[in-house]
C-alpha cells in the first residue's frame, strides 16, 4: 500500500465556491468596519455582532443539517450523507466556538460581564458540548457503518435536546437582547446597518458551504483510500 500510487487524484484546484466565499467575507467585513456607522449607544462594540450573529446562524444551520443528514442516513444508508454530517458538525463546532468567543467580547463592555447564564448563552454552550461529544464519538468508533449509525443517533437526539435546554434555562432567567431583525413589526435597525448585517449573513453562509465542500472532499478521499488499502 505504501508504494502504490494514490487511488484517487486529490483535486488541487481552488474551489470556485471557496473563492466566492472569501471575496464575500472580505467585502462584507470591509463594509461593516469602514462603511457602516457605529451604533449610537453601543459604539464600536456593536460591530462585533456582525461576526457574532451570522456565526450563530451558521452554527444552528450546521447542526440542523447534521441532524437531518443523520436521519437521512438511517433510512438511505448512503455514505455521502454521513460524510456530509461529519463535515457539517465539524464546521458547526468551529462557528459555535466563534460565537462563544465573540459573545463575551461584546458582553463585557455592553452588559458589564463576560459571561452570564442567560438562556441563549447556555443553550449555545451546551450545543457546543453536544457536538464536541459528537466529534469525539466519531473518533472513538472503528468501522464506518457503526460510526455512521452511532453519530446519526446522537445527531437526532441532540436536535431533540435543544427545546428542553432552552425551556429549562429560560425558566431559570434570561437577559439576552430580544430579536431586532426577525420580528413581526419589522426590523428596528437603520437600513445601512441592516444591509451590512444581511451581507455578513450571506458571506458566512457561503463560507459554511465552502468549508463543508472542502471537508466533504477530504472525507471522500480518506474513505476511498481506506477502501483501496483494504483491497
Amino acid at each position, binding site marked *: 500500500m505504501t508504494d502504490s500510487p494514490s487511488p484517487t487524484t486529490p483535486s488541487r484546484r481552488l474551489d470556485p465556491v471557496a473563492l466566492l466565499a472569501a471575496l464575500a467575507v472580505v467585502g462584507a467585513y470591509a463594509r461593516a468596519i469602514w462603511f457602516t456607522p457605529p451604533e449610537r449607544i453601543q459604539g464600536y462594540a456593536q460591530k462585533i455582532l456582525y461576526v457574532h450573529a451570522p456565526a450563530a446562524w451558521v452554527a444552528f444551520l450546521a447542526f440542523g443539517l447534521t441532524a437531518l443528514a443523520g436521519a437521512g442516513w*438511517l433510512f438511505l444508508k448512503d455514505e455521502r450523507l454521513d460524510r456530509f454530517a461529519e463535515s457539517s458538525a465539524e464546521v458547526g463546532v468551529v462557528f459555535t466556538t466563534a460565537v462563544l468567543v465573540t459573545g463575551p467580547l461584546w458582553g463585557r463592555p455592553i452588559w458589564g460581564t463576560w459571561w452570564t447564564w442567560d438562556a441563549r448563552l447556555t443553550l449555545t454552550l*451546551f450545543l457546543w*458540548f*453536544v457536538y*464536541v*461529544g459528537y466529534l*469525539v*464519538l466519531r473518533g*472513538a*468508533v*472503528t*468501522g464506518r*457503518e*457503526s460510526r455512521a*449509525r*452511532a453519530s*446519526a*443517533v*446522537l445527531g*437526532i*437526539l441532540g436536535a*431533540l*435536546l435543544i427545546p*428542553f*435546554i432552552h*425551556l*429549562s*434555562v429560560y*425558566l*431559570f432567567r434570561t437577559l439576552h437582547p430580544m430579536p431586532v431583525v426577525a420580528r413581526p413589526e419589522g426590523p428596528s435597525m437603520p437600513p445601512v446597518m441592516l444591509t451590512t448585517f444581511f451581507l455578513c449573513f450571506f458571506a458566512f453562509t457561503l463560507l459554511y458551504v465552502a468549508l463543508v465542500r472542502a471537508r466533504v472532499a477530504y472525507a471522500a478521499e480518506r474513505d476511498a483510500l481506506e477502501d483501496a488499502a483494504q483491497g
Partner: protein
Amino acid sequence: MSAPGVVATALRIARKDLAIEFRTRSAFLSALVLSLLAIVIFYFAWDPTAVGPAVLAPGVLWVTFTFSGLLGLHRSFGVEAEDGAMDALLIAPVPREAIFLGKALANLAFVLGVQAVSLPAVALFYNLPIGSAVVPLAAVLVLAAIGLVAIGTLFAGIAANTRLAELLLPVLALPFFVPVVMPAAQATAGLLAGRPLAEAMDWVRILIAFDLVFCWACMVVFPHTLDD
C-alpha cells in the same frame, strides 16, 4: 411481538441484569460509597458559616446522583462484554426494543436504589427537615431518574462499542442530563425550603415532558445503534 410480550421480555432481561448485580454487588456498592463520599466531600468544599447546609443540599444531591448513576450505567453493557454475551442477546429472538427496555428498567432500579440511600444520608449529614416533603420529593426523584436512565442506557450502549467506553459515556451523557438535573435541583430546593409542590410545577412539567420525549425517542433509535 405484541406489546405485553415486549414488556415480559424486558422484565426478564431486567431480572437477569439485577440478578448478576445482586450476586456480585460490585457496581452497586461502588456507586453507593461514591455517593456517600461525594456528600461528605461537598460539605467541606464550602464554608458552612457563609452558606447554609440547606442551601447546598439540593445541588449536592443532584451532582451526587448524576455521577453515581453514570457508574451503574456503564456497568449495564459492560456485563455483556464477556463471553460474547451481547451477541447472544442479539441472536435471541427478542425485539431490540425489549433489550433497551430491560436494560433501562434494571438501571432504573439501580439508580433508585442509590437514591434511596443517599437522600436520607444527605438529610442526616446536612440536617435537613424532609419529613413533610418526602412524598413530592420522591416523585421528583423518580421522574428525574427515568429521564437520566433513558438517555444513559442508550449512550452506555453506544459507548460500549467504542475504544473510549469509560471516558465517552460522561462526555456524551452529561449535556443531555442538564434539562433533567436543573429542573430536578430547582424543584428539590423549593421543596426542601418548605414551599408547596404547586410552586415547583413548572419544573415538574419539564421533567415529565423530557421523560415522555426521550423514553420514546431512545427506544425508537436504540435498535439503530446495534450492528446487524
